[in-house]
């Protein structure tokens, strides 16, 4: 076959071989020579080389190094210089025990492939061979032969796979951020600008997740070129994707440091990026009444109870809160407990205030300001105390008026009717 080809299209074959070498080995030819050769070849093949040509089976990188348990994917190309179309079946030989290999075309595993006439590298169907070494693969060199057989075609491709546990890729994928530790008060939305670099030779899709976030926290990943948060991001070979990681702590988070681990996983890599969220403490105190009703009715000189609720609105426990009241002259305001020893963050305690207006307080409204405070926080509750008279005095008025009427009736009875 080789002889025949050489006889019939010796010149064209020489040129074609030169072209193949240029494509596979990436030898740089001068521009003019290549263009010339290209034109020559086409003319020659179309006019002269009818009949069976040469079928070549090739890949870009026939020799690779992988780790035990690692995988490698070879992109395969099949070219044909002849006019014959053929269908070939694919097989692999020399695959060591425990290794797994599979041909893949489009999205399926394939076992046969069709070769068109004058098929060039660009026209080759998207075919690949993925090879997975077992975890216990021994160090050494393995030779695997891929075969395409069918009809008159019998092409081979030798793969040289070296297993090296210490293998370091030329570039390892990276997942980094400039500011791994951030701090702020509760309610802050922390934002980490991260960079995910794909240093492998292939396009990868990384699935993103965060570990170690307490319950109620929300972590989202938003690539810079996408509007919405996503859980996976595709990164082209050699490219870098900027991902904004937003961490929203829960509302009632207490102060402290929270380490999180951001992970980006793809087929061959598990990238981890530890970050620290530091929630700074905030003190807050709110004094109010449980019902929200801030008005109290009271009688002059008589004690009236008002229930107050003191709430710790910060995220740090408050201790030794003292209660004080500011009221008018001669008024007495006491509390069932003058000091609250401890209110945990986010919780509230009820206190009863005993308000005694002065004996000579005039009718109407007075302001009583109750203050709960310690060294770091303080809050006021303005109560409006309405001083009232007992309705009983109205009864006294009616009794006196009735007595007057009876008195008049008695006078009329005694002196009248003459």
């Amino acid at each position, binding site marked *: 076959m080789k002889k025949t080809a050489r006889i019939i299209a010796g010149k064209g074959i020489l040129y074609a071989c030169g072209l193949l070498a240029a494509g596979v080995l990436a030898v740089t030819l001068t521009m003019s020579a290549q263009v010339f050769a290209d034109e020559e070849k086409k003319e020659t093949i179309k006019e002269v080389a009818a009949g069976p040509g040469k079928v070549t089976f090739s890949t870009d990188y026939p020799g690779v190094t992988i780790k035990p348990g690692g995988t490698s994917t070879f992109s395969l190309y099949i070219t044909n210089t002849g006019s014959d179309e053929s269908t070939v079946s694919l097989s692999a030989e020399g695959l060591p025990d425990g290794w797994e290999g599979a041909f893949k075309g489009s999205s399926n595993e394939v076992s046969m492939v069709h070769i068109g006439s004058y098929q060039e590298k660009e026209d080759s169907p998207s075919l690949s061979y993925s090879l997975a070494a077992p975890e216990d693969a021994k160090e050494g060199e393995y030779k695997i032969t891929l075969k395409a057989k069918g009809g008159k075609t019998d092409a081979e491709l030798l793969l040289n796979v070296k297993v090296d546990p210490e293998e370091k890729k030329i570039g390892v994928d990276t997942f980094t951020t400039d500011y791994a530790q951030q701090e702020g008060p509760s309610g802050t939305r922390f934002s980490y600008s991260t960079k995910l670099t794909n240093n492998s030779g292939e396009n990868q899709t990384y699935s993103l997740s965060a570990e170690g976030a307490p319950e109620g926290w929300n972590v989202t990943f938003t690539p810079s070129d996408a509007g919405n948060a996503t859980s996976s991001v595709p990164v082209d070979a050699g490219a870098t994707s900027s991902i904004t990681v937003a961490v929203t702590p829960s509302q009632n988070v207490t102060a402290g440091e929270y380490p999180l681990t951001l992970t980006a996983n793809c087929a061959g890599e598990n990238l981890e990026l530890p970050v620290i969220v530091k929630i700074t403490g905030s003190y807050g105190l709110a004094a109010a009444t449980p019902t929200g009703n801030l008005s109290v009715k009271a009688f002059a000189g008589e004690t009236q109870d008002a229930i107050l609720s003191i709430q710790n609105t910060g995220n740090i426990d408050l201790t030794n809160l003292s209660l004080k009241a500011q009221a*008018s002259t001669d008024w007495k305001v006491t509390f069932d407990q003058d000091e609250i020893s401890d209110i945990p963050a986010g919780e509230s305690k009820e206190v009863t205030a005993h308000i005694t207006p002065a004996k000579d307080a*005039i009718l*109407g409204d007075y302001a009583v300001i109750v203050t709960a405070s310690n060294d770091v926080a303080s809050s006021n509750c303005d109560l409006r105390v309405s001083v009232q008279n007992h309705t009983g005095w109205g009864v006294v008025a009616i009794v006196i008026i009735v007595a007057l009427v009876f008195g008049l009736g008695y006078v009329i009875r005694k002196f009248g*009717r*003459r």
Partner: protein
Amino acid sequence: MLKAAAGSASLAVNEGKRGNIGSHSLSALYRKEMADHVTSKRFIIIMILVIATTIASVYGAVTGISSAIKNAAMDPKASFDAHFMFLKLFTTGGSSIPSYMSLIALIGPFIGLILGFDSINSEKNNGTLNRLVSQPIYRDSIIIGKFLASSTLIAVMILSTGIAVGCAGFLATGILPSGEEAVRVLIYLVYTILYICFWLAMAMLFSVFTRHAATSALASIALWLFFAIFMSLLAGIMANAVYPVNTEYQQAVNAFENYNLNLNLNRLSPYYLYSEASSVLMDPATRAINAVSYAQLVGALSGYLQLGQSLLLVWPHLVGLLALTFAAFTISYIGFMRQEIRTS
């Protein structure tokens, strides 16, 4: 006309059973007395006076309120309280016209005086009383009937003018009363009626004990002048005598007691009782009627009293006015019953 009264009374007695004489004679006398008043020129003059007063005060209130609103709109410093606007119809005066409240406080006592000053002694002088008591009626029906008839007229007059002020004010300004405002105005009018009835009772007291109508008229006017003007002067003099405030030291020590004594002496006067009660009723912002120290005002918030609380402030005034009225009427009643009429 008094003959007719006696005639109708006797007619009522002739027709009725013996047991019902009292009520029959009283109602006949009451109705006759009312008819006499309503048809008399004196009553027409009072009525014209009261109506003129009402019209003037409504005009004054409407112009006063509108100018106050204008001032508040022009000058942000001028404060205008938009609460209880309906009550302002009664308490606001114009530039030179007093409010309804102050006009009624002035004219009210005269209504009572004019209706009562000659009720007994003029009939005695004309000899008609003599004939009246010779009829088979209880004698106390005469004085009770006269008092009740005059009180009814006073009540009708005051209630109608008070309601007229409210209606005219509503037509002019569009201010509708809230329930509380309406009740406050009504209670205020009841106090006014009671106050005028006190002066009616005083005038009748004088007419029982004096022989001539002119004497009783002068005596009642003198009493009114005393309570309206001289009582406050007297109270001031007495308070200064007991708690002198001539030097700075005395002022520092005695000022509070001086004021309290002055106030309590003034409260003996029905004139003062009435004005205090009406100002509390018509101004809900009034929180106290006694002297208030600065200590009591610390922390006080400006606000309004509820109606019930306002009433609790002024119930002693109601009792006081009622007691004074009953006392005056009881004395005149006893005096009338013990008088020898037939021989006079």
